[in-house]
């Protein structure tokens, strides 16, 4: 009799557990890994509502952080947001899954000129999420000169008044652009020259920052800062004294894209998420929230004219003649690493 009771108990437990399991199975989950403050989080709730998928949302601060986490294999994210050069690196290292464009019909809203770019020529692995440039954000009450050249970042007049990016490719790119070289140069001498220039600039720099730069500029703590265009848009809304300029020597045009890691557990859910984010209405609200330019044509057409006609946010093609996209550097990356380590240690 006791034996029977035990059997019944075990069966009951099993039934309960299996109920629990099916309950979980009914609520599949996708894991999304994005830059900090880079999405309108209300949209995530709406996506959950619409698809009945659960979204677990995590954030990172730099491409390199994200890369290390995916590479080490300890985590299984379904959607990630690498930048152009990092995407290429991840493709080359076979870390990504191909996108299923059939299940992303909203991809047709993406402007033609943002597809088929060098970092992912066939758009097999990625669709663009935002794009922008790098330029100089400056406080018009503190800067009298015309800001149209990277040279101003080496002007001793603004000693301890300028903020540089604590990001190696971006800061080295600024020096390369000032020197008139390609931001993707593989030439050792050109890179050494850029490194020297950055060391020379170091006494003038107030601080090397990433996220704090925007706040410091809003608070009037510095006169000039190298920032990404979307941050400039946000900062200018908070402090009308600020202005943004893309220097005449050229700039870096960058793309942050949506991609799916190779070992994602819920690739189907990931495709639905990417499709959702490319819905014109959703992309519009997201662009309004983040302040970054959207590659989604339908969304862009719905944005207010004063935003889409602002060439610092949506530069037109002639503004971008001298602009370059970062490419993955392969082995030469270690030279960039070394130069940046030396600049920082100087």
């Amino acid at each position: 009799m006791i034996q029977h009771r035990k059997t019944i108990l075990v069966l009951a437990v099993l039934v309960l557990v299996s109920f629990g399991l099916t309950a979980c199975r009914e609520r599949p989950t996708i894991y999304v890994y994005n830059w900090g403050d880079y999405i309108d989080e209300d949209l995530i709730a709406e996506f959950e509502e619409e698809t009945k998928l659960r979204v677990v949302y995590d954030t990172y601060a730099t491409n390199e952080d994200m890369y290390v986490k995916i590479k080490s294999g300890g985590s299984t994210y379904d959607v990630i947001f690498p930048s152009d050069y990092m995407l290429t690196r991840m493709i080359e290292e076979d870390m990504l899954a191909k996108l299923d464009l059939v299940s992303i019909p909203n991809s047709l809203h993406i402007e033609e000129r943002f597809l088929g770019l060098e970092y992912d020529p066939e758009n097999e692995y990625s669709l663009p999420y935002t794009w922008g440039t790098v330029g100089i954000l400056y406080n018009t009450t503190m800067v009298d000169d015309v800001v149209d050249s990277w040279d101003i970042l080496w002007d001793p007049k603004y000693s301890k008044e300028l903020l540089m990016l604590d990001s190696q490719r971006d800061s080295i790119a600024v020096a390369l652009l000032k020197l008139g070289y390609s931001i993707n140069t593989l030439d050792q001498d050109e890179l050494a020259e850029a490194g020297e220039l950055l060391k020379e600039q170091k006494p003038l720099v107030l601080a090397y920052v990433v996220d704090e730069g925007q706040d410091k500029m809003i608070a009037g703590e510095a006169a000039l800062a190298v920032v990404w265009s979307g941050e400039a848009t946000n900062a200018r809304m908070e402090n009308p004294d600020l202005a943004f300029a893309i220097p005449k020597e050229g700039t870096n045009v960058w793309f942050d894209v949506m991609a799916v890691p190779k070992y994602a557990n819920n690739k189907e859910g990931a495709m639905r998420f990417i499709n959702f984010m490319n819905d014109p209405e959703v992309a519009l609200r997201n662009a309004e929230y983040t302040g970054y330019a959207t590659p989604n044509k339908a969304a862009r057409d719905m944005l207010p004219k004063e935003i889409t006609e602002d060439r610092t946010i949506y530069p037109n093609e002639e503004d971008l003649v001298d602009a370059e996209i970062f490419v993955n550097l392969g082995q030469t990356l270690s030279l960039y690493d070394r130069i940046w380590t030396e600049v920082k240690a100087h």
Partner: protein
Amino acid sequence: MKRFSLFPYVIWMTLFIVVPMFLVLYYAFTIPTETGATWSLENFGRFFEPIYLRVLGRSLRLAVISTVICLILGYPAAMVMAGNAFTRKNVILLLFVVPMWMNFLLRTYAWLTILERNGVINVLLANLSLPRLNILYTEAAVVLGMVYNFLPFMVLPIYSVLSKIDKGVVEAAGDLGANAFRVFTKVVFPLSLPGVVSGVTMVFMPALTTFVISRLLGGGQFTLIGNLIEQQFLVVGDWGFGSAISVVMIVFILLSMAIMSFFEGEEKDVALW
């Protein structure tokens, strides 16, 4: 039975201390090649280039300065708490401990707003028509951050040793004719040495390896050893060089522990660790 109860700790230590330690050593002494890795001292050779030795020098200098300031500020505070002059000494003790309930990063961020150009201190100074103080993003700010964050680690061990000193010994010294100064130099201070030693160690080590304080309050300009290691692992991905720096750091910490235990003498059991 005793052996058996130790078992989980041995496994824990092997998994999380010994194995990682060997991994660090492995990465430090190898360089990647086409086919795998080969033994090499290249990573260490690179560390001994002048530019990185300067980083090491700067780290040691700032750590020593911070430790000395902590000692100068912390010892009298510990004496006040251990003595009888002040009746509410628990309140002071609590005041030292309460900030530690808050997150370390948050406390360091708070200093950013206090020290910045239009920050709390400067607004106050401006209202008093005094000249402004621009110390954010300087070495002074980094030292300030270290002293602020690590001061409790100096005060608490010294306090715990001082409060255990037998009052009779101090009274005896007085009865035998020593003035207050001699009582302190000949009796109290020597007896408190174990506390000073553990306080110094507990401030010096984190000060030597910190990377958050120097990045936030130094604005990324004052690269310390900790920043260099962090950069190698998180940004650059050069695990070999990062591990080599870590190994050098371990050597320095072992050295400082050896020096400290020499001073510590026999009374190890009084110290906090």
